[in-house]
């Protein structure tokens, strides 16, 4: 997994009164099939992704997954897979917000991986301060995915 020192991508967060949106993008020199396979195999997440401590269920359209993250070790997020476009787009979320993953082929053998999460709603100002910032975790996620994908791509 990637250490913080190795990180070479920067997440950005846009805050409004009723929402907060964090995004990160990174170029990955690997086939989109590899990136997609890593993103959609729930049982394998904890092996390569240092931001996820547990992920149960199957990442299939309409299915529910249970995710535990380093951001809040005690909390289990129950999330529904809302969009599932192989090698292009994956969306999961709950009533508070959606996490959107996109993979775009760059035409040179690499892909651009992006992830965005927008949380918010009318009650957002009441609990906004209780939600930790996502930036570092997003950067870590993207870097872990890049590292693992490129290791696989370059394997013999």
């Amino acid at each position, binding site marked *: 997994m990637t250490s913080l020192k190795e990180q070479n991508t920067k997440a950005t967060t846009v805050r409004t009164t009723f929402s907060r949106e964090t995004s990160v993008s990174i170029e990955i020199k*690997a086939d989109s*099939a*590899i990136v997609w396979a*890593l993103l959609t195999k729930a049982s*394998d997440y904890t*092996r390569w992704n240092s931001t996820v401590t547990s992920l149960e269920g199957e990442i299939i359209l309409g299915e529910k997954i249970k995710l535990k993250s380093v951001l809040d070790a005690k909390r289990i997020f129950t999330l529904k897979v809302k969009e599932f476009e192989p090698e292009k787009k994956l969306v999961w979320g709950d009533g508070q917000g959606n996490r959107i993953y996109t993979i775009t082929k760059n035409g040179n053998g690499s892909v651009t991986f992006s992830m965005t999460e927008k949380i918010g709603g009318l009650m957002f100002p009441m609990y906004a301060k209780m939600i930790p910032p996502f930036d570092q975790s997003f950067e870590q996620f993207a870097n872990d995915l890049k590292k693992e994908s490129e290791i696989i791509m370059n*394997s*013999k």
Partner: protein
Amino acid sequence: MTTELFNEEFKNNIGQLKSFLVRITASVADAEDIVQDTYIKALEKISTFRGESSPKTWFFTIASNLAKDNLRAQKRWVENVTDITKAAALNNKQFFQEAMQIRMTSPHGQFEAKEHIAFCFTCISKSLPLEQQLCIFLKEVYEFKVNEITTILGTTEAMVKYYLHTGRSKMINIFDGRCALINKEGVCHQCSELNGIFNPKQNTQEELMKIDLVKEAEKGEKEHLFDLRMQILREIDPFKSKASELQLHHLEHNRQVMEKYSEKSAE
């Protein structure tokens, strides 16, 4: 290709095919059936063979497809298969009586820790998703190149690399956690225990230290230890080795136990 040449090629590859199939299916009967079906299918398609791949790759493609059909309906095994099957064996007097009989009478009934290491890998690899298990055996044991595996499994190079990497990582992780040969805290000591039963006059520790995997364990290089484990599998023919009858008897026991275990957990 003429029928004569075809038969010769098939004969040259039948040993590796059977070895591969028994390790994938954990069933001698299924392996035999699939080898026969592979022969029939290949013979039927002999006119379509253009030599774009080697005959070995062609036979393995047909055999892998048949094996996939056979295995898709079956549940995958679990990582701690050896704990489950050990508990069942300890409650099964007949199993040990049969095994001892094989040990005493069969020329292929010797017990060697190396053979058990290969047997153990066969059982635990059945906990991997099927594609990962197939890729590991094809690449690491039967020495196909990645591009040949794409032909055999009908998938892309990227996915073969993904299956290989994830399968390998998982197996390394499982053995690192469980195998007492490479981790002093490992919970599985079955090679030593069985060596004590079948070779009571041997000094088990001395015997184990003859194996490179065990000798190198102290260094703790996980990838290297995995490669040494694969070398053991490459060197053993599960149908012809000195321990084949004993190990295949054990494998059949495990297969039956795991079949019942899967039925029970599905209830």
